[in-house]
């Protein structure tokens, strides 16, 4: 916020400071022979240069923000589903998880779905049996902009 305020201040100062400088190049010496260019626009342009620290077109990746059961956590009862909350909206058809027990065997899961009204929350029903033990979740996500992310976390069912 401090920086933003500084830039705004800078912008105002430049907006008032530039015209005199730019004015030297306009007028009769204008090589195009007719009228002077829209100096206001030029002034704005030059003024904005002073805060040209910004700019850019970017892309967002879906990062895992929260999960239930929590990563590294322990739950006493076997969960009926896994919930994963991401930083971006997901393309659900190309996102999902694999759930594995400590022995490396996969536990069967149903099709992932997004919660209605929140395309950042993916829910995956667990159809297989979860006994006590450590489970590993390998997730992969495709954000709406086509960027893929993946990761792993563990949770424990037991005491």
């Amino acid at each position, binding site marked *: 916020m401090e920086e933003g305020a500084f830039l705004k201040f800078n912008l105002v100062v430049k907006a008032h400071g530039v015209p005199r400088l730019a004015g030297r190049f306009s007028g009769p010496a204008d090589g*195009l022979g007719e009228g002077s260019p829209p100096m206001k626009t030029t002034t704005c*342009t030059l003024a904005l240069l002073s805060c*040209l620290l910004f700019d*850019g077109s970017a892309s967002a990746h879906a990062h895992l923000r929260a999960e239930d059961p929590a990563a590294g956590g322990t739950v006493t009862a076997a969960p009926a589903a896994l919930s994963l909350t991401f930083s971006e909206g997901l393309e659900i058809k190309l996102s999902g998880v694999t759930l594995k027990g400590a022995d490396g065997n996969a536990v069967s899961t149903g099709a992932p779905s997004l919660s209605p009204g929140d395309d950042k929350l993916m829910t995956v029903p667990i159809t297989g049996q979860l006994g006590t033990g450590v489970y590993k979740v390998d997730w992969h996500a495709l954000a709406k902009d086509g960027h893929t992310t993946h990761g792993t976390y563990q949770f424990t069912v037991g005491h």
Partner: protein
Amino acid sequence: MIAPHLALALVRLCFDAAAITAFGVSGFIACIAPKRLGQAIAASSNFLIVAASSVAVISTVAWLPIEAAVIGDSWQSALDRGTLSVILYDTAIGKAWLVRLVLSLLLTAALPWRSASMVRLALSGFLLASLALTGHANMDEGTRGVFHILNDALHVLAGGAWLGSLLALPGCLARLGDPAFCAEAKTALRRFSSAGHLAVALVIVTGIANTVLVLQHLPTDFTSTYQMLLVTKIACVAGMTGLAVINRYIFVPRMPRQSDRAIIQIRNGTYAELALGAGVLALVAFLGILDPA
């Protein structure tokens, strides 16, 4: 074999360059140059339009399988019918791809009509704006999301108009010395100057808004590759703006006295601006596959 995501950046670079070329050159012919000069520039820059339209189609067609390879994390997925059909029918990227395919095919279909610059301008404008449908402005929801997409589209269009029209500028400068075109070329330069001020201002304002929306802070963390490349891109844009200002306010005023020399200086300045613009496009393509952390 190069990694799929690197191929995606390259295909994006080709697509951007093609759409910007078609947009800027058609825009110069349709809106900046008076009629006869427009026709002359259209004839001499036809190869640019043919190349841009062809590259637009080829890069669009290649985009989908490369996207599939990125998603499947292997080149085997590139032609996997299951993956391709899910992308095509069930994702926002697929819908945007279909839009781009139709637009780029129409752009190519319009090639025989050399005077259809206005049509080409509209088609390539939509093609450029379609980048905002996937590139990520979709990270926000609601009003902010709509604003982000519109802002991104405006940023791409203003930047495309600026960079693309520079490709047509040397053709206009060369005709300043031709008595048959001198008056029209001067009119075109005057309009180019006004439109240029507007485009540059728009690029900067929308660029600032974009950064605020995406990063939500200043790109000053140089340990982040994304922010480092973003700052490099900003430096290139600042360089282009500087060259444009020098061209307009130092070299153009010299035209009445030292016409030939000033024209050569403006032309060289334009080429330098184009070189920096090519750097910006390359940076944009790579920024597009990086995580804005």
